[in-house]
């Protein structure tokens, strides 16, 4: 079934994670002449990039006048002026070329009447610039990148769970991974490593993210001594289904879906009398959370009412949404409103990098949701994240290949690294008493939602840090039921939980210190206003020897001075 596999291998460039950013990086590194391999805990097409629906932003100007400058201005404003403007300008300028390349690779984007790429308007954008493939844009990109990977015969270490960066005196020497399918620790040496592991949404119980989004790359970087930037910024999507957290498309509100509270009142009237349900994501999410906090909720949910659509419109236009509600909430939206609440959707923060994905360690790179360039600043615009995976995946791939090809000799890992890793996992596997990871995980998710959700305040965050300390203590005695070698996902889930706990501490610590409200970080009770004088800067969190160190770095401003953000 499985051929014999060397426990050790070596490549120029190793990409951790095989979603859109990882595959794009690997393709570029390969084309730049490097021997590249991907390491992923999932088969590449199972990655969460595939769940992105709306589309990918580039100022092509196909559907109306547009320019990279306008795209940049919208992104800067959307970021609540926390995005680094040099990165944003570069991103917007390079985005169109990447779209054309994806099209030539075979991406099946929707077309307009002239056969050109169709573009639609998205929230926060001053022009229709989102290229799309129906409501499966991410899926289509993921497939086409995988096709290009196969065309180049790039090696993929599939279902390998990378769990440690091995850092020596001259930089990173590679990673240790657990081979899920066969069991055993693998030492993968590399001259350069690119982290592309995606987001961390599973830190929250209500999240649109897949089970796999456990922030592995961020936590690995943290443990290797790298700083994580702007971790306090998590985007919440206003309509996620209760209890599963699955995304209910914004199109429901676009087509006239109503948000109601327990009294049957259209509460958006009080928060955004003009735009009502169609106000921007953060505004609606905050309105909903206020209703919940003030007790006008139905078991922690608000109601999204689409009964007035009628059978015909429902089946024709919202077949998918109805199916979602029937399958996951047991509710037919033709007969009953569906329960929704704000859910964690996207992590703006991540491993601090420059515009080439380079981190503080010269040969460690990061791209995609795991990274913080910073493109999104305090708030991401819809359609920018898929584009980010492509632009910065490509740039990181190119830079990593150049870096690797400059390093002489072959990559190698000290044998002791693998032995240490094996010993550590053996300790975990030999434990016969303790607590199952699921209980700790569930408490983590619920408490983060409660104390570090849409709204934050000093007391709640302090409580959360205490609670996290308790959860981390309990995690020291976590019990893995499965002691087998073959497909031991129980072990992997326990390791993931360790990552999540570390990340949560960093997120809350950074949030506590950011004494202002900006973008997705909202503190209405203690610091309701944006404070450019003191906080127009990025937070940086490091962790060494169980000591958390928080520092700040300035925001790069090129053209756009901070202004009040109104829509």
């Amino acid at each position: 079934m499985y051929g014999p596999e060397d426990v050790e291998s070596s490549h120029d460039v190793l990409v951790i994670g095989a979603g859109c950013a990882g595959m794009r990086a690997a393709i570029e590194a390969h084309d730049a002449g490097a021997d590249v391999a991907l390491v992923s805990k999932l088969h590449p097409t199972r990655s969460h990039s595939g769940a992105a629906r709306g589309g990918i932003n580039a100022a092509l100007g196909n559907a109306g006048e547009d320019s990279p400058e306008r795209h940049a201005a919208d992104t800067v404003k959307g970021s609540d002026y926390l995005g680094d403007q040099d990165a944003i300008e570069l991103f917007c300028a390079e985005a169109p070329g990447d779209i054309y390349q994806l099209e030539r690779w075979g991406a099946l984007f929707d077309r307009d009447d002239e056969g050109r790429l169709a573009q639609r308007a998205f929230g926060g954008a001053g022009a229709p610039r989102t290229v799309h493939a129906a409501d499966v844009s991410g899926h289509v990109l993921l497939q086409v990148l995988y096709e290009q990977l196969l065309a180049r015969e790039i090696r993929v270490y599939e279902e390998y769970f990378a769990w440690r960066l091995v850092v020596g005196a001259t930089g990173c020497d590679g990673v240790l991974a657990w081979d899920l399918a066969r069991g055993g620790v693998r030492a993968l040496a590399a001259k350069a490593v690119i982290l592309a592991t995606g987001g961390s949404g599973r830190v929250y119980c209500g999240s649109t993210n897949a089970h796999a989004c456990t922030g592995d790359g961020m936590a690995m970087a943290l443990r290797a001594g790298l700083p994580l930037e702007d971790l306090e910024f998590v985007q919440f999507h206003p309509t996620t289904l209760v209890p599963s957290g699955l995304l209910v498309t914004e199109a429901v509100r676009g087509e006239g879906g109503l948000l109601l509270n327990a009294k049957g009142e259209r509460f958006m009237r009080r928060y955004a009398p003009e735009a009502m349900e169609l106000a921007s994501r953060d505004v609606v999410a905050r309105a909903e959370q206020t209703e919940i906090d003030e007790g006008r909720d139905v078991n922690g949910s608000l109601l999204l009412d689409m009964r007035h659509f009628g059978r015909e419109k429902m089946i024709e236009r919202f077949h998918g949404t109805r199916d979602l509600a029937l399958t996951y909430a047991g509710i037919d939206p033709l007969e009953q409103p569906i329960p929704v609440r704000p859910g964690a959707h996207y992590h703006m923060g991540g491993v601090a990098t420059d515009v080439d994905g380079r981190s503080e360690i010269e040969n460690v790179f990061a791209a995609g949701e795991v990274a913080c360039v910073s493109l999104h600043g305090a708030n991401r615009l819809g359609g920018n994240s898929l584009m980010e995976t492509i632009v910065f995946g490509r740039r990181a791939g190119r830079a990593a290949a150049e870096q690797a090809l400059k390093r002489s000799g072959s990559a190698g890992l000290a044998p002791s690294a693998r032995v240490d890793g094996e010993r550590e996992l053996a300790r975990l596997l030999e434990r016969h008493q303790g607590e199952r990871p699921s209980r700790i995980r569930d408490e983590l998710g619920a408490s983060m939602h409660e104390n570090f959700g849409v709204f934050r305040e000093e007391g709640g965050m302090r409580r959360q840090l205490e609670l996290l300390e308790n959860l981390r203590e309990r995690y020291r005695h976590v019990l893995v039921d499965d002691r087998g070698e073959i497909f031991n996902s129980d072990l992997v889930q326990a390791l993931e939980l360790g990552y999540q706990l570390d990340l949560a501490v960093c997120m809350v610590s950074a949030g506590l210190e950011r004494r202002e409200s900006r973008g997705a970080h909202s503190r209405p009770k203690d610091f309701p206003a944006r404070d450019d004088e003191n906080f127009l800067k990025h937070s940086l969190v490091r962790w060494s020897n169980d000591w958390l160190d928080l520092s700040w770095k300035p925001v790069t401003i090129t053209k756009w001075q901070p202004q009040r953000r109104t829509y």
Partner: protein
Amino acid sequence: MQVRLHVQRSDPVTGETRLQLFELELPREATLLDCLEQIKDEVDGTLAFRRSCREGICGSCAVRIDGRTALACRTPVAELVAEGHAPTIAPIGNLPVVRDLVVEMEPMWQKMRAVEPFLRPGPDCGLDGRETPIPSARLDAVRKESLCINCGACVSECDAMTVSPEFLGPHALVKAWRLVGDPRDDAVAPRLKGLSGEHGIWECTRCYLCNERCPKGVDPRDAIAKLGAEAIAARIDRDRGARHAKWFVTSARTTGWLRESELVVRTLGLAFSFAKIPLALRLFRRGKAPLPLPRHRARDLAPARELRHIVAGQDRRGALGIVQGERALERIDFICSPEQPVGEDEP
């Protein structure tokens, strides 16, 4: 809600397989995946299964439920356990089991790689440095196929793969059509030649289970039919399967009915058919096949000719001629009803 499930467990070391009964308590909107998660979290952490997105897009969690393949995350469990039924959950078929509900997907990926699953763009693609303009309708031909999430449900259900493990199978052929049908691809003829060989397009037995069970509505059998139609249109029709298909048309056109005894000769060729004479004689004797003479002929040839005329009038060549399954039946109703104009609902 009380849920009782039998889960097929298999030990990766000993290869031993057994059914294990689990009794769970879940909310009424729970999915089958929620059940598996609860087992793993609270009852038995050694249960192995794949999962990630829990919304039917990553394609990880296909399993067989009482023998029918479906995504665990898209299956509300309430329907399964109605009237106290305890369903049996087993790994998907036609792929080797690794452990419990986890199968080795590599054979499926190998077949996908065998169809060179990447676009080979023509020289005039993106000449001005921008996108190649393509009418939206031209891309409709491959839209359904582009929805494939590689879950393996079609492979699990494929009877032809069970009998002939080397058959490329529905999943790889969907990918093949995704490229053959793409107006930007410049390698259509070599692709069709490669796909028309042994274990290719014509090995499908047309059981339609892949269409029936695909969780994304990809309709793999339709993709295979489109490949066949394009191959014949491009005169890549030397394979027995192609000859077999062509004979159906010839027979229907000339006598209105299928002439089974001639079918063998037309498909296998004269030399190979000699070897089948003893079988043919046995079939004739038991009344399982008609004698070659007199020719099998419909009393009235007009309806068959009329049908042919309608199709020809719609100018559907190659893949455009493929309308199948329930949708196809609906379309035939539509075409035949006099108050509706013909051809409004082009595919």
